[in-house]
């Protein structure tokens, strides 16, 4: 591709990689402030969770009917956001989409941050978290919950491998290039770079391994969110009892994940001068990708709501009326129109795929994706087939308490802390892959 690059040019380019990759890791402006803020959220979380542990789940707004609330909606959101790692680095990578190269690590970091916390979110939903182990000791293999635990653990493991594996050459590179780093940091790089020398044989093994992981992660990622959807779809409840819940969830996950990647790309680009890696072209392509997955999601939404609404089976009708013109109509239509319909239309115009504009849209899409999870979880629980009666007034509706909100905010803070630390410790730009693309691997691996 770039055989024309002279030795001199190659050296300059590699030096530039080193500089650009190390800059975000060294630049600590605002880092303390940001981590301090997240730490504060964590302190509030700790207090709220302490209250929940002490007094039990009655401190939440969850009662007999709405037994899954903000926590489960948040869990679904986290799993959804983590799915993007698979979409970008595996699917698009296997499709040989060269433009995704610089974005792969961003998407892997998001995937890792969210999937690591998703499991914790589930534990916060448990009234007796000390009984968590019972799931492994006494879980029934017939239960989708056990399948969910299995796939989440598996996906976490694969995501970790798929994050660490492509880091090997870069860490060896950083180890050589980065000056005056603390000893522990050098040790991390030393261990994780596995004595990388950049030999042809090592490259062959690396490529082979990445390819294996990229292939295996596709079905695992699909199943992680499909099984999460089965937690709902395998019950006989209006709104959940549908056959398309698996693909519907997966499509929704791509939307949320792509939006998250766009936002993180924009933050990195504007804070650390990485315009050369997250170029306008990348935002343009991510915008197109978001349109594509949003259209897919819209297609599933039409199926999900139009088909039952056409029949209006009595049980479903109560639920659907609540969404279309009842208590949840405001949220529902905002999410569908502002969070899905309008972004699709806007993003079809090139102007709105410019970095800042696209990020603005992505933020709206991400917020809508979160609210959509609440709309999926809560209204269905409020409409059991046997009408709710003879129960206290507050059982008839659900609005999360401050404790639930604080715990949820804490989960976000944890995920963001993981993402921030990963960004600080590891180079966000997959340098060796770019070097390989430019045909300057030799220069990149040159030992000094």
């Amino acid at each position, binding site marked *: 591709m770039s055989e024309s690059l002279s030795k001199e040019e190659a050296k300059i380019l590699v030096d530039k990689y080193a500089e650009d990759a190390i800059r975000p890791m060294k630049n600590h402006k605002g880092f303390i402030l940001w981590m301090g803020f997240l730490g504060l959220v964590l302190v509030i979380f700790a207090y709220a969770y302490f209250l929940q542990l002490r007094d039990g789940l009655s401190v939440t707004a969850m009662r007999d009917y709405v037994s899954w609330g903000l926590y489960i909606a948040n869990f679904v959101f986290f799993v959804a956001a983590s799915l993007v790692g698979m979409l970008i680095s595996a699917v698009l990578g296997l499709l040989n989409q060269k433009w995704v190269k610089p974005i792969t690590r961003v998407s892997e970091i998001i995937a890792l941050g969210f999937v690591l916390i998703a499991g914790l979110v589930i534990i916060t939903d448990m009234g007796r978290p000390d009984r968590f182990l019972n799931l492994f000791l006494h879980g029934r293999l*017939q239960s989708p919950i056990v399948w969910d635990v299995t796939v989440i653990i598996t996906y976490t493991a*694969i995501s970790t*491998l798929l994050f660490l594996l492509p880091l090997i050459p870069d860490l060896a590179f950083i180890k050589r290039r980065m000056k005056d780093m603390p000893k522990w940091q050098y040790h991390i790089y030393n261990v994780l770079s596995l*004595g990388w020398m950049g030999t042809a044989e090592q490259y062959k093994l690396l490529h082979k391994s990445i390819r294996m992981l990229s292939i*295996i992660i596709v079905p695992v990622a699909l199943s992680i969110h499909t099984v999460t959807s089965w937690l709902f779809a395998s019950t006989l409840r209006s709104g959940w009892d549908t056959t398309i819940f698996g693909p519907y969830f997966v499509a929704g996950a791509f939307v949320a994940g792509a939006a998250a990647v766009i936002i993180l790309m924009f933050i990195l680009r504007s804070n650390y001068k990485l315009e050369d890696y997250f170029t306008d072209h990348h935002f343009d392509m991510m915008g197109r990708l978001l349109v594509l997955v949003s259209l897919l999601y819209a297609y599933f939404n039409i199926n999900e709501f139009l088909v039952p609404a056409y029949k209006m089976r009595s049980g479903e009708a109560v639920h659907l009326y609540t969404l279309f013109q009842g208590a949840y109509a405001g949220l529902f239509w905002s999410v569908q129109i502002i969070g899905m319909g309008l972004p699709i239309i806007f993003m079809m115009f090139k102007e709105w795929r410019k970095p800042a504009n696209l990020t603005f849209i992505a933020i709206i899409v991400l917020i809508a994706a979160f609210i959509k999870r609440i709309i999926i979880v809560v209204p269905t629980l409020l409409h059991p087939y046997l009408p709710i009666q003879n129960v206290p007034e507050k059982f008839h509706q659900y609005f999360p308490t401050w404790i639930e909100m604080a715990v949820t905010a804490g989960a976000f803070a944890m995920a963001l802390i993981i993402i921030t630390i990963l960004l600080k410790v590891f180079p966000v730009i997959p340098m060796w892959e770019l070097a390989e693309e430019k045909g300057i691997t030799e220069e990149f691996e040159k030992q000094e």
Partner: protein
Amino acid sequence: MKKNNIITNFSVLLILLMPLMGWTQSEWMVSDTKQKEKNPVAFSDASVKDGKVQFMANCKSCHGDPGKDNGLPLVPKPTDLTLQAFLDLNTDGSIYHKMTDGQITMPSYKAILSDQQRWSIVNFLRSMDKNHKVAESVAASKPQKEAPKEEVAIAEAPYYLSLSVDAAKNEATTVFQGTLNGEKTAIEGAEIFIGIKRYFNNLPVMDAGATTNSQGIIKTSYPGDLLSGEDGKAELIAYVIDTETYGEITAHQEITLSPAHPNHFKDTRALWADRSHFPWWLMITYLSIVLIVWSVMAKVVINMLKIKSLGK
């Protein structure tokens, strides 16, 4: 059994509608013409007895035991219909039409009880009415009603309740006796519950409102084709309903009903079975997927170790 279903349905309905029923029942008046309607069913022992049976089967579930004022705690509260105040206030026609038409929580019994039965219930209620003057045409039958009451009711504790079973005919016999002058004496007119013991309540097999005859006996048959456990064993239970007068007196008797053939749900490999009985196809699918995915990961880890060894 069918009547019981109707009662259950109504009771459930009543409980469900409870919160909606805000207003009191005190103003329930029946039109003049209806109030003045005369009871076409003659006041006789037979009619009172029939009325009692119907009352026990249809009214008691809400209005409670006659004279005990222990109706369900509904709003408005179902009146004890044997209260003198109620009987004084309502004419025969009034009671009859309230039963017939119903109002709010009180369902209409028009379709459930025949005309004759409804009027018999009126007669039964009147039999507890101190101020009740029997019309002259039927006065002749009145002494017969009053007579036995005064003769009995002297028997004292200890009381004896025996329960015996004729397994061939599926027939149960209870004998209720008290003590009079040191000797066992039959107690007449006592209500006895006879039923089959269940986990949470007993399945009644006697006729509602049945009372002991002059020998202190109630006979009833029970459904022998009822399924009960793997060996068909069940327990028949009898007790005196009027615990205030007689105290808690019960009798038990083991009986054999039809054996139930257990379906060995837990022994089949199925989705709903316990964890040691999940289906083979699921186990193979689950384990093979987990195995394939994790062995790919293991292979990758081995490759990483190879990379490491190449670097030395």
